[in-house]
């Protein structure tokens, strides 16, 4: 057990979970994205203390774990999962389909991890939640049947929505101007292409209004996030390779994403997990827009009187640390009043769509979404705004009787500049 100071290169998203009383850091020398063996001396450090069930200290100690709050039994919380991993890796318990199901009934939203006070768990538990899915796949217990189905479609038709690849660009209106030799690509993603087309349209129109030279690549395919997140690393790698080659060969040097999952996959998973150092600069739309606001290129012409609340997508928030950019852009829109939900930023409650849960655990997924919608309504906001078409789609599917509206940030911006 090597002792060392906090490793600079280790991605460490500072949350409020870890105590201010900390005077020294003595944590294992761990790397990210390793197999279970690599983390084996950490699992049993978990004391099943339950700190990972609620926000630590602030936000009224509210619940954070959709999996636990829905599943109820201890095994569904992070503490339970850690100790199950310990049991499975030390032959105290046997792998079964039911064990695998526990690990899949989790959106890997990382809200629990943010709260845990054990530095190694706080920094690395996300790695073994994923490694367990990989293990389940190796042993034939994963992915779940619905996930297998969408994976098949992704491998054949490049999208998880059971749609045809040839229909991918059907959303694209003729008035969108593209620059054939642009080195900037708008990576639309499957959800914006097939389900939340207004996000794709709004994004393309915003880029046109800002006179940005960009193009959309005809043969863009799924980034692989739904495949990777369900433990199917080899298949996801394959998709990554295809995407990277295609984009590189097309001369792309910069990518803008709409979807939080695509962003994280391109920016973090491709190079850091798969080892594909593609060298393409990837920006999520709000980051890009913030820079345009700062240099004065983005100007809001119209007022948009609306009380909104912002939902942090897990894949750009806890996974990638983007909390400020969307808020800074939102707050600059004239007329917008941003009211935060009690659980926000690193403590945000997951919308319940990611990690493959929406396809395989419908009731659980809807439970998570409804909990977030309820929280959004409590702020008295008229709309939930997010920066991810998958979150948006999840909200729209779960909002009842127009109780609240849901938008992507791009949709609001489009209303104020066109």
């Amino acid at each position, binding site marked *: *057990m090597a*002792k060392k100071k906090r490793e600079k290169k280790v991605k460490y998203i500072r949350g409020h979970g870890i*105590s*201010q*009383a*900390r*005077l*020294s*850091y*003595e944590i*294992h020398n761990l790397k990210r994205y390793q197999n279970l063996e690599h983390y084996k*001396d950490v699992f*049993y*450090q*978990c*004391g*099943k*203390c*339950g*700190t*990972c*069930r*609620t926000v*630590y*200290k602030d936000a*009224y*100690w*509210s619940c954070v774990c959709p999996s636990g709050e829905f599943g*109820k*039994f*201890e*095994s569904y919380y992070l503490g*339970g999962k850690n*100790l*199950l991993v*310990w*049991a499975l890796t*030390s032959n*105290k*318990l*046997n792998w*079964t389909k*039911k*064990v695998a199901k*526990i690990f899949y009934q989790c959106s890997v939203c990382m809200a629990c991890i943010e709260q*845990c*006070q*054990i*530095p*190694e768990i706080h920094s690395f538990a996300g790695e073994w939640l994923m490694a367990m899915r990989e293990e389940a796949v190796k042993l034939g217990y994963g992915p779940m049947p619905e996930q297998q189905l969408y994976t098949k479609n992704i491998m054949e038709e490049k999208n998880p929505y059971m749609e045809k690849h040839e229909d991918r660009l059907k959303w694209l209106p003729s008035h969108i101007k593209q620059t054939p030799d642009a080195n900037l690509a708008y990576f639309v993603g499957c959800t914006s292409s097939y389900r939340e087309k207004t996000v794709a349209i709004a994004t393309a129109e915003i880029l046109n209004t800002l006179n940005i030279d960009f193009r959309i690549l005809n043969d863009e395919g799924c980034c692989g996030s739904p495949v990777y997140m369900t433990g199917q690393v080899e298949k996801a790698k394959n998709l990554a390779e295809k995407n990277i080659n295609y984009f590189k060969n097309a001369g792309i040097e910069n990518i803008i994403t709409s979807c939080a999952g695509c962003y994280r996959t391109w920016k973090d998973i491709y190079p850091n997990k798969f080892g594909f150092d593609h060298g393409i600069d990837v920006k999520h739309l709000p980051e890009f827009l913030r820079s345009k606001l700062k240099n004065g290129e983005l100007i809001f012409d119209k007022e948009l009187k609306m009380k909104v609340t912002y939902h942090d997508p897990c894949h750009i928030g806890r996974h990638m640390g983007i909390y400020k950019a969307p808020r800074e852009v939102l707050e600059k829109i004239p007329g917008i009043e941003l009211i935060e939900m009690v659980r926000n930023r690193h403590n945000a409650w997951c919308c319940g769509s990611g990690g493959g849960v929406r396809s395989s655990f419908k009731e659980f997924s809807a439970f998570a979404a409804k909990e977030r919608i309820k929280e959004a309504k409590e702020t008295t906001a008229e709309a939930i705004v997010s920066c991810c078409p998958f979150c948006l789609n999840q909200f729209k599917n779960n909002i009842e009787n127009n109780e609240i509206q849901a938008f992507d940030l791009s949709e609001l911006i489009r209303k104020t500049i066109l």
Partner: protein
Amino acid sequence: MSNNEIISELEIVVGERYVSDQPELTYLYHYDFITAEPEGRCDIVIIPGSAEEVQEIVKIANKYKIPIVPWVTGINFGSIATPRKGGIVVDLRRLNRVLEVNEDDMYAVIEGGITWAGLQGFLEKYHPNLRAGITWSPPGTGVIPSCLCYGMFDLGMIGGSGAEFINGLEVVLGSGDLIKVGSCSLSNYWYGRQPLPDLAGLFIGWEGSTGIVTKASIKLWPKLPFREDYTGFARTVDQGFPVLLKLSKAGLGICDLLLVNFGWSQSIQELYEKNVVIDAVKDKKPDCISLITTQAYTEKQHIAQCEAIIDICNEGKMRLLSASDGVEGVKPPPVQYWNFWNFTRGGGGQWIGSYCSTRDVVKYYNISREICLKYGKPPQFYSRLMFGGHYVVARSNVNFNKNDPEDIKTTRKILQEIHEAVQKLDGVVMYKPPLWAVKYYKDKTLPSTTRLINKIKKVLDPNNIMNPGQGIGED
């Protein structure tokens, strides 16, 4: 009878979703995952949603005469929530509401499974002027078990132990009957246990072997406008403790008075046991670190109280740092976080935690210190003066690597040695005792007292199904 038959009956009570005998679910309930006590066995786990459901579950357990263990978070340093004889673990987490807060009489009526996080969050949101005592256990631990097992809070100096915070109870007895204890048994008020025969004692300190508490009223306290948290340093516990004793008898708005040794303070700095100072005294480190919290209603009163505290500490050569001087680090955390207990990076910890006379604390410390040093473990000690200085809690913590059987063995030895040695000081009584300690006290108590305990247990739990194997009654 098979598990399947019992499960079918239980499913009728709580629904299919909340009962299971699947190993990937029961595994988390078979052991506390912290102590060096042996593992147990959980056959069935069930999560009821109301007191009525708890009653039905207890009736089914009686019918089949299978053990039943009340459970909230299941981490307890005496391993009390570990099912020693198998059976049904009743996870109370769905009973997690605050049912009422009476601001005039300052109490909260809470359900059996509420955690400290749940209670604290509710008060912060809806009653910010009131506070509950905060235990230094993690936020996910249960409020009611903490009170029933004599846990202690950061209001120990004014309120005593958790047991003294209890105003009233609603309990499902081992027989399945539901009873109420305290003023709530006669009225809608839950203000106290007086002046009726105090039946709360039938459930406090019984380790869940007489009934399952489904509701309780616990005392709340006003948040006063002025507060100061001091951290005091003295060279040794021998030198520092008398200063605290003096403070405890001086009033001065002190709501919490706590002492930890250097070893314990190292654990809270998230250091790794392998790299710390083992013998602080030999190393000339301040081995007595105290936390003194005072509060007041007016500024004038506050200044006078603080001055008096400073004077007493100066006289006793205790150096003080104050939180309001900007020394944020000395402000105690609102709850204990698990990392305190991960000193070995092995996730194991247990204590010999005792109530004792204020006369014996220093002796207790020195005895436990010697034993820890003998085994090469940094001595960790923690003591809290309670209820205006009427008694004291003394605790020796031992951390270990729960993945290392040798370390577990050594820890057991250390704990038993400390226990035996401190028993030579008259009046040291362990709280949340594991089975081996319960047996020790049984042998020590007057036989007629033991007989009475056994009789009571039989009346309340005729089939001995309530948390059996913990040594209570004729177990």
